[in-house]
């Protein structure tokens, strides 16, 4: 269960914070995480930030994903969507 999406805290006022999720902004509550600061990436669930994103871990995994595809030829790495002029 449990839909959670990553978002970035923009401003914080007490427990209330504004979070941006890919262009959408919504009020969120930060009382469930410690030391929230604007700029932090958090996981949003049911209107609350329930976890901070570990940025170093995230970048490491993304780096790994990029690395494993670097050996691929261009024709493999490109997506298979039909090309539209």
């Amino acid at each position, binding site marked *: *269960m*449990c*839909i959670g*999406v990553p978002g970035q805290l923009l401003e914080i006022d007490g427990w209330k914070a504004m979070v941006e*999720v*890919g*262009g*959408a*902004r*919504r009020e969120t509550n930060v009382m469930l995480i410690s030391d929230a600061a604007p700029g932090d990436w958090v996981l*949003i*669930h*049911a209107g609350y930030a329930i976890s901070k994103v570990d940025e170093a871990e995230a970048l490491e995994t993304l780096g790994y994903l990029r690395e494993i595809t670097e050996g691929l030829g261009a024709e493999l790495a490109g*997506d*298979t*969507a*039909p090309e*539209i*002029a």
Partner: protein
Amino acid sequence: MTDDTILLGHGSGGRMSHELLEKTILPALGWDESDHESKVLEDAAVMHITADSLLAAELVSEGDSRIAMTTDSFVVSPIFFPGGDIGDLAVNGTVNDLVMMGAVPLYLTLGMVIEEGLLISELEAVLSSVKTAAEAAGVSVVAGDTKVVERGKADRLFLNTAGFGVVPSGRTLSAAALRPGDVIIISGTLGDHGIAVMSKREGIAFETPVVSDTASLAGLAAQLFMSEAELRALRDPTRGGLATTLCELATSSNVGIELDELAIPVKPEVARASDLLGLDPLYIANEGKMIVVVAPEDAERAIHALQGHPLGGDAAIIGTCSDDRPGRVTLRTTIGGTRVVDMLSGEQLPRIC
């Protein structure tokens, strides 16, 4: 203050009704009596549609004159949303239904059910949108009706529009006309309308740059027809979204439809807002997009025609018809898997889990 709101009396048919019509509704719609054969309001609109006038406009040829009619009701809540309101929605929705059958839309009716207490300024704003949208779509609102109901018996304002158009010679489009090999095109990004409306719903509200895509497709379709691509069917994926509409097409034509998820255009902010609400953009309503099914050899021609129009810039080929799994829609996913795409069941509710 009572002057500013709609009262039950405005629907009585008496003096207040006349005042509302003459001081608010007709001016807001830009009704000009000199345009009409009868210089006063009658019980029904009477238009000349002679074979000659249609022939002159090159809409029909001798011996082939068909009309298209449709009706649709609009109960969107809230009535004002980012990118539009119930007024332009009511015009574009009915216009698009005519256009999807290949018709050139000509006339609309406008029925209103108003909940007492609606601000007259809000009614004027909606009617002004009706006027603008009708002008943009090249249709005239020729008849209408106003009813007022007690508070709680409607949700502010319901509209119904019926539309009338003429189907030019040689255009035969049908949901049953799809054949294996045909190409599926979508005219633009998915989910904009549904996300824009949902962003303003009570209990869900969030701020988003997404605006409704409500628009008349008459101009875009005209480009397409001019391209002379061999079209099988046009459909606008409104309620139920792309998935539901394609399921209907696959069933009606008894063909399989295979989609490529990577090719389906979705704005990033729509994709993220959908994630946030637990919704799937394939099932979210659109109000200014069309699915074009075209013979394979004409796919490029159709795409070119669509992309040459302001509403078709993001048009993309998203799939093909096959004789595999007739009646079924399948999707090749981003990561290369395959899944079945089914119709929407019930209302799309934001979910938490």
